[in-house]
């Protein structure tokens, strides 16, 4: 019995061993297959990695090249930013149409280009010049040097200006006359060249400002220059030309300036005065005096400003034009930006009084501007003019202007 049992156990062990062996063979075969698959996958992966590495090697070349490019650009940028001398061209351009309703004439009357060249050396000196290149009515081209000066920054509060400068007298001529700054397509009566407001001067001056507290400031501009010249028509002084002369026919300098007070942010009050001589070639000098006052205020989208200026020339009995006279003008202007739209409305009143009736003019003007950008705009305006009957100063007119400051 025992033998039978032990024999049976033996048989069972043998069967189990046989089964185990068979099973082991099956597992070995499946492992081999799995390994083969794995190797295949690894080969595939290796192949892809090799391709990637090859590709990355190419990218590294690109990166190297890019780095060099960035370095060069960065150096150029750094040089442009930190170089001692920097040059820049700014300026403005204007084109326009004028239509006189009473005389029935209309013409594309304005095509002007005013490049301004700036050259800055450190924070020490600035050389600047503006040219006005404009198409004349007869098809010729007028070129004029508006100003050309060297400005030396003496300190934080004083800049020395020398050369041909915009007249520091008044506010409109030196700050508001560029087409992209002026709110209306035309210049207010009396503030054009050769009228009541001096435009340019050749001489030497100092200007700058002193802070008086939060947003408050005192501004000043003082100068000495050759002064203007007289334009004589027959036995009368027709006008005072202040184009900026490098000669001084009357041999007497003009000295003057403007003091501006900013008592509150965005409110500026200014007074201007000048005294000196003016005359004609070969004649003794005669007195010349300028007085002016101006105010400007901005509140939110509202811009208000007004200005008065006068030039007086004394009498000279021995002159070919013995009678002197006073040329004076004033204006008030309000403009409002209708944000968030791009529209702006303008209302202006101006009056020009001259010794000559044909020059006198009183004007109401209303306009609307469309701003594509802060310095790119279209301006449409209408002037209600009163002057000597039959003169252009008496004709109402439409004006359309496109202006771009750059």
């Amino acid at each position, binding site marked *: 019995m025992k033998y039978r049992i032990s024999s049976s156990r033996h048989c069972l062990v043998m069967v189990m061993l046989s089964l185990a062996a068979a099973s082991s063979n099956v597992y070995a075969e499946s492992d081999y297959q799995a390994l083969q698959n794995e190797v295949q996958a690894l080969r595939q992966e290796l192949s892809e990695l090799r391709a990637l590495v090859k590709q990355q090697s190419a990218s590294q070349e690109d990166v190297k090249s890019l780095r060099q490019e960035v370095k060069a650009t960065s150096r150029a940028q750094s040089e442009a*930013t930190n170089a001692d001398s920097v040059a820049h061209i700014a300026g403005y351009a204007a084109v326009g149409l004028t239509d006189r309703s009473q005389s029935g004439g209309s013409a594309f009357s304005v095509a002007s280009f005013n490049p301004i060249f700036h050259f800055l050396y450190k924070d020490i000196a600035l050389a600047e010049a503006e040219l006005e290149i404009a198409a004349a009515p007869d098809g010729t081209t007028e070129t004029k040097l508006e100003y050309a000066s060297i400005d030396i920054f003496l300190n934080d509060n004083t800049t020395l200006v020398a050369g041909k400068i915009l007249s520091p007298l008044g506010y409109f001529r030196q700050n508001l006359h560029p087409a992209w*700054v002026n709110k209306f397509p035309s210049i207010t009566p009396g503030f054009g060249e050769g009228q009541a407001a001096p435009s340019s001067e050749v001489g030497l001056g100092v200007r700058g400002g002193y802070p008086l507290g939060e947003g408050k400031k005192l501004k000043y501009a003082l100068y000495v220059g050759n002064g203007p010249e007289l334009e004589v028509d027959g036995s009368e002084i027709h006008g005072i030309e202040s184009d900026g002369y490098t000669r001084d026919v009357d041999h007497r300098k003009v000295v003057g300036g403007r003091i501006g007070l900013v008592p509150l942010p965005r409110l500026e009050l200014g007074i201007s005065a000048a005294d000196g001589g003016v005359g004609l070639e070969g004649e003794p000098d005669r007195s010349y005096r300028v007085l002016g006052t101006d105010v400007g205020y901005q509140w939110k989208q509202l811009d208000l400003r007004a200005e008065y200026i006068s030039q007086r020339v004394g009498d000279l009995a021995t002159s070919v034009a013995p009678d002197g006279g006073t040329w004076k003008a004033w204006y008030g202007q309000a403009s409002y930006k209708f944000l968030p739209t791009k529209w702006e409305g303008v209302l202006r009143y101006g009056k020009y009084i001259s010794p000559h009736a044909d020059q006198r003019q009183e004007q109401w003007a209303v306009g609307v501007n469309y701003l594509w950008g802060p310095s790119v705009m279209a301006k449409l305006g209408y002037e209600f003019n009163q002057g000597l009957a039959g003169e252009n100063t008496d004709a109402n007119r439409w004006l359309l202007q496109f202006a771009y400051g750059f």
Partner: protein
Amino acid sequence: MLNNSFHWAASLVSAVLLSMAMAGVSHAEPSASVQDDPGHFARGAQAWANNCASCHNLRPAKDLRDDQWRVVVAHMRVRADLTGQEARDVLKFLQESN
């Protein structure tokens, strides 16, 4: 006549000297104050809004490159009678906003 011109020229020179004395900076060191106080962004934003808008529409920083602003601000320093400090502040504001 000559005396008159001399008188006014002397007055102008006096004004320059007085102005330099008030600023406490000598002509030989025009950039000394630049090193003392570089531009300040917040002050610059305020000065930009107060001064530039007094004449023309405000031009955003992106209108020009940083190096161009350097020259334009120098030009406006003369035209608008900005102090040197205001000019540095405005330049800082424009360049950092660019």
